[in-house]
């Protein structure tokens, strides 16, 4: 399934219809650099797009402009083929789940869900039918008469999503609504959002700073930093082929190696490490290599490293146990400034290497990505 996703070329993607189109959108609050700079992207009808980025990268600002709460300084937003720049928020057919949910505290769950329909002058019989249907969709039958403060965090989330979807909007916006939940509930709700989104086929733009959530739930991911779109790609593409150093370091766990780019690879002191350089990387300039923790091999001797072009001796300096996985931190005499972070590979036993044990590590040259790096 992943491979076929990967092989979807740009031509076949272009054939699908576009639900939301953002063109050259900039938001300048007039305090320092703009919160969003010249953002342009399309969202396919029925797809799930995640905007991923660190705090302050402009994610919420971008979402608020799409919702109509803020007017872009420049640029145009088109929804279902119509430019919406002149439309106030209540004239845009967009459902939104807020970061703090923003359920109406004086209304019951059912009244909250009914509100968008009431505002659209839907007749009462139809309202009660739809409210029932959507409370059922989010598995909240039996909670209709409760007020938000009488519901658990997860149940409040469900009310919020039902309220955002009940009027069958063209677009659903999610502004980190899961950030406040504990991990287990968050992961459960991620899958729940995905299920509901698939079931209704509603185009969705989700905002998060949780890379795991982005990879798990999205069809497409946009990585943002400092108001700029860094990369727009499918999850697998983003993970396998990061465009730049920011994307490489923001997603996944990698070890970084600083050096100079040569025609044969990255030169670090007297070491020459083969790797694949991004097109932007310039020969002779300072560069930074990145190898993912799962692509580094570790073993007691050379036999564990079959096929690795690069090998070196090292010593385990730390062992980080994260439950489902284990990370070795390894130092090597030949590259003294670098702490290699390596996933443990044996699924049947943990802790083969104690802190202090001598090990041999290595990797395939093609697994190291080399990026421009202004030191």
């Amino acid at each position: 399934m992943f491979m076929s996703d990967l092989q979807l070329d740009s031509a076949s993607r272009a054939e699908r219809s576009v639900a939301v189109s953002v063109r050259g959108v900039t938001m300048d609050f007039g305090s320092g650099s703009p919160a969003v700079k010249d953002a342009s992207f399309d969202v396919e009808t029925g797809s799930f797009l995640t905007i991923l980025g660190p705090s302050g990268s402009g994610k919420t600002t971008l979402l608020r402009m799409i919702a109509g709460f803020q007017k872009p300084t420049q640029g145009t937003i088109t929804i279902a083929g119509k430019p919406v720049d002149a439309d106030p928020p209540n004239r845009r057919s967009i459902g939104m789940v807020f970061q703090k949910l923003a359920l109406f505290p004086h209304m019951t769950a059912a009244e909250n869900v009914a509100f968008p329909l009431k505002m659209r002058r839907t007749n009462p019989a139809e309202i009660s039918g739809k409210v029932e249907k959507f409370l059922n969709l989010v598995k909240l039958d039996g909670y209709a008469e409760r007020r938000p403060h009488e519901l658990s965090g997860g149940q409040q989330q469900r009310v919020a999503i039902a309220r955002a979807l009940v009027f069958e909007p063209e677009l659903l916006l999610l502004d980190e609504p899961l950030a406040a939940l504990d991990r287990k509930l968050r992961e459960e709700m991620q899958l729940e959002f995905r299920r509901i989104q698939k079931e209704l086929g509603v185009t969705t733009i989700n905002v998060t700073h949780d890379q795991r959530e982005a990879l798990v739930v999205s069809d497409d991911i946009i990585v943002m930093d400092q108001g700029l779109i860094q990369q727009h790609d499918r999850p697998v593409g983003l993970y396998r082929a990061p465009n730049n150093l920011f994307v490489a370091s923001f997603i996944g766990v990698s070890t970084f190696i600083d050096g100079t780019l040569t025609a044969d690879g990255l030169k670090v002191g007297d070491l020459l490490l083969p790797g694949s350089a991004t097109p932007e990387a310039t020969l002779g300039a300072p560069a930074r290599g990145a190898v993912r923790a799962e692509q580094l091999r570790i073993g007691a001797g050379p036999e564990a490293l079959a096929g690795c072009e690069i090998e070196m001796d090292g010593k385990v300096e730390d062992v980080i146990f994260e439950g489902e996985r284990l990370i070795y931190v390894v130092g090597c005499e030949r590259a003294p400034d670098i702490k290699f972070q390596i996933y443990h590979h044996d699924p049947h036993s943990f802790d083969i290497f104690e802190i202090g044990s001598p090990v041999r590590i290595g990797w395939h040259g093609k697994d190291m990505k080399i990026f421009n790096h202004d030191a």
Partner: protein
Amino acid sequence: MTSSSQKLIFWTLVGISIITLSMPTIIVLGASVTSGNIIAFPPDGFSLKWYEKIAMARELRLALWRSLIVSTVCVIVSLPVGTVAGIALTRYRLKFVNLINIYLLLPFTVPLIGSGIGMMLVFGEWGILGNVWPVGVACAVINLPFVIWSVSSSAAALDRDLELAAENCGAGRMETFWYVTLPAVMPGVITGGLLMFVLAMTEFLVSLLLTDARTVTLPVQIYNNIRSIITPDLAAISVVFVVIALIAVWLLDRLVGLEIFLKSK
């Protein structure tokens, strides 16, 4: 210190505070049920004859009735204005907010006698003196900051995202105000309304300036009576005032107990 001696000290302090705070009320209550002819505490025997006397006194009944009208007019005038102003001051970025806030403090810096005389002149000019309702309007004007403050404190606690959520659900400005903003500030509106009612009920100085023999309100009537002779019926009237205030507090508790519903989580 042991916990039992801590407890003893705590309850002693609580007891002293309660007694000092309620002393005037208790004395007035006691004095009002005396069976003697002079105001005294402890009361000289028990009787309800002074309550009977004030109930029979025509001028007191009329004065109470006028005071109720004054209070009602005051609430009707001040509540819509104060509510909108209180919300506007906190919710929307108005220019000169600080200036407006200072202006709202004016009633407390200009002595009541000043604003009272001012209004006497204006109302005299307009030829509306001699009516009861202008007293209510005057009370509304001088006490307006109380409603504004009480509404703004509710409005400040309101999550701005609630209004955005309403707009996102398709509500226009008026609908957002009516269905979301107003219910959220309702505790402040109710508190402000009851406060205005009680303040107007007991307002003396401004009433004194704006009323004549035909329009005296209850506080002014009591003052007139004191000037002649202090009898236990005054204590009985005071008890009536205390009861009105208690009813207001009770209503507040009943109505603003709703506040729990209005706050999320």
